């Protein structure tokens, strides 16, 4: 192993950690006055890191030259694809934050620093080449996330969200670690390639327990049913920009990590875990769809929507083929745009005093009071429901196509049937906005940055997005190929 090559491969991580440390010093000396400057610099660092990882994706990097530090870290096209999504959504959650926190006089200089470190941890997660890297990346992201969830200190709900997330997250980490120790005990190695080679003769019962525990820990992190109970409470209680962050970047990171572990380390043993993933995927789709129906808080509704979407993404994992992995990546990219747009639209719902409106009946008649916002939100809801002219349909289409190609026809049919249930509550929001008597609650002015991001997301998910479909699919294919190359 060549140290200089390894250090070159982790350039984005170096950029983010140095930026984080320097900005932490700036925060310590200038205090909260400098939070706007620190936010701008943090966004610049995230965008710079995204540019640093882009060449590996465009060149389709794979194979031994992408592996750093004795295979503990992989900087291949798959990691680059996920990192670009992570860095951009982290940057977006920094851009939308000041307008929210300033209303509570709670904008603090540590917010961008914590988001930077969380993004660093997520980058390490999707680049993990062994179980220890996996755990360290995961904990780096989770610790920052616990603090971010409780960031709005005067608000009790925020403290509750932070505490709940911390306790359940620590439990899930414990389960994950237990699974990892079983796998280490039965294979004698922590590296994914080593585990794959050691398990080539078949999976012993002990190792199978290890796989199950690892899957449980990861299912908690991606909030898949039956480990989803924390999601609505945390998403509702956390400050909205933080919820935006939780619903986008960590989802990409945790799903990318799950793909790496399952397809790299246990790829040859797919038959052993496929039925678990099939169950988790279908249960997430159904519970996510049914749970959302009774919600009256739009953040809780979006939380169930993310559970539902994770189910669709996991269908791509269940088929365990390169097409499935590629479909997952395409879906993830579209999901990030839809969720980002959805939460930014929620941030733009303010009453005349500028207080944030979260309750769904207050949206009644939004099409007459704020037609542009209502149109944007309606398009995002239609897209989340997977209604054809919008780009959200394409994500579901590629996932189901991968399932059908791999002969998982029953899975695809059940998924399509369950997506109809999901469409109900998305369309209910549209109906409330367009056909109910105006409630005249949402009147406040929106921040210019919120408008820009909402417009960008809506253009991406509009039928114009299909112009990108071929390009996005090509990149996802390259990324999936690099994931399977390691086998």
């Amino acid at each position, binding site marked *: 192993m060549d140290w200089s090559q*390894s250090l070159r491969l*982790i350039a984005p991580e170096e950029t983010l*950690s140095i930026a*984080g*440390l320097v900005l*932490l010093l700036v925060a310590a000396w200038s205090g909260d006055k400098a939070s706007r400057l620190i936010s701008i610099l943090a966004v610049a660092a995230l965008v710079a890191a995204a540019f640093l990882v882009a060449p590996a994706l465009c060149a389709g990097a794979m194979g031994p030259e992408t592996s*750093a*530090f*004795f295979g*503990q*870290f992989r900087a291949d096209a798959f990691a680059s694809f996920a990192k670009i999504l992570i860095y951009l959504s982290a940057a977006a959650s920094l851009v939308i934050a000041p307008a929210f926190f300033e209303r509570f006089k709670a904008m*603090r200089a*540590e917010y961008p*620093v*914590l988001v930077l*470190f969380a993004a*660093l*941890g997520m980058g*390490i997660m999707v680049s993990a080449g062994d179980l*220890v*890297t996996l755990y*360290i*990346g995961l*904990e*780096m992201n989770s*610790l*920052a996330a*616990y*603090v971010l969830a*409780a*960031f709005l*200190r005067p608000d009790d709900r925020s403290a509750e969200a*932070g505490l709940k997330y911390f306790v359940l997250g620590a439990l899930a980490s414990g389960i994950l670690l237990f699974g990892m120790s079983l796998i280490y005990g039965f294979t*004698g*190695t922590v590296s994914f390639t080593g585990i794959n080679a050691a398990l080539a003769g078949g999976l012993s019962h002990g190792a199978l327990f290890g796989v199950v525990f690892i899957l449980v820990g990861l299912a908690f992190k991606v909030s898949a049913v039956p480990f989803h109970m924390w999601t609505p409470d945390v998403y509702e209680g956390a400050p909205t920009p933080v919820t935006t962050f939780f619903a986008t970047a960590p989802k990409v990171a945790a799903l990318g990590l799950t793909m790496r572990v399952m397809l790299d380390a246990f790829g040859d043993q797919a038959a052993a875990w496929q039925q678990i993933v099939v169950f988790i995927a279908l249960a997430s789709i159904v519970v996510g769809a049914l749970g959302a129906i009774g919600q009256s808080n739009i953040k809780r509704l979006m939380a169930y929507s993310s559970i539902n979407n994770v189910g669709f993404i996991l269908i791509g994992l269940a088929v365990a083929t390169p097409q499935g992995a590629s479909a997952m990546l395409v879906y993830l990219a579209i999901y990030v745009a839809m969720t980002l747009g959805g939460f930014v639209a929620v941030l733009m719902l303010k009453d005349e005093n500028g207080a944030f409106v979260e309750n769904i009946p207050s949206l009644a008649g939004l099409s007459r009071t704020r037609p542009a916002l209502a149109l944007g939100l309606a398009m995002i809801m239609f897209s989340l429901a997977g209604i054809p002219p919008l780009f959200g349909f394409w994500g579901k289409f590629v996932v189901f196509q991968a399932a059908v190609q791999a002969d998982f026809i029953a899975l695809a049919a059940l998924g399509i049937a369950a997506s109809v249930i999901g469409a109900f509550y998305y369309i209910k929001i549209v109906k409330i906005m367009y056909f109910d008597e105006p409630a005249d609650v949402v009147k406040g002015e929106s921040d210019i940055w919120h408008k820009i991001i909402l417009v960008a997301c809506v253009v991406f998910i509009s039928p114009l997005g299909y112009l990108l479909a071929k390009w996005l699919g090509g990149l996802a294919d390259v990324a999936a190929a690099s994931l399977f190359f390691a086998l």
Partner: protein
Amino acid sequence: MIHVFAFYLFAVLTVGSGAITILSRNPVHSVLWLILAFFNAAGLMVLVGAEFIAMLLVIVYVGAVAVLFLFVVMMLNIDFAELRAGFIKNFPLGVLVAVVLLAEMVLGIGAYRAGAMELGTPDGIGATPAGMTNIEAIGALLYGRYLFLFEAAGIILLIAMIGAIVLTLRQRSDVRGQNIGKQISRRPQDATRNVNPEVGKGVTL
């Protein structure tokens, strides 16, 4: 022979004190049993020849973490007078525990002198390089092969520190801090005033 005897002693005491830790109704007793469990785990580590990990267990867990636990437990509302009540009655038991601990130490050292237990031969990167002590081997791995993860773990600790400060530090507006520059630059003529009070009358301040 001494190995097998020491192993069963340490193992039984670890499991037993671990069980009592969670079964005990008194939190102070729980922590004390936990310390005993850590001690015996350290003994097991000595037996397999991992003396560095044994030392870490004693220093980090028994020394720091358990004492920290004890402080936290003492902040709970516990009636210490009631705890002390049975001192004379339980004195023989205390002596017995002390003797067991002493015997354990003697056994542990004896077993260590007799050489480590062979629990399978480590291979690959798991094997200790020839001519290296445990500490050297751990150091070489930690600062060499696993340097990246070591540094990343450092960042995690930093995040934990930032988080603790962000969540607990409150800027109070009613605290008047010391301004050293202002204090030093204050001159006597600004601060003192000569008055010549008349007899029988007070001074206006």
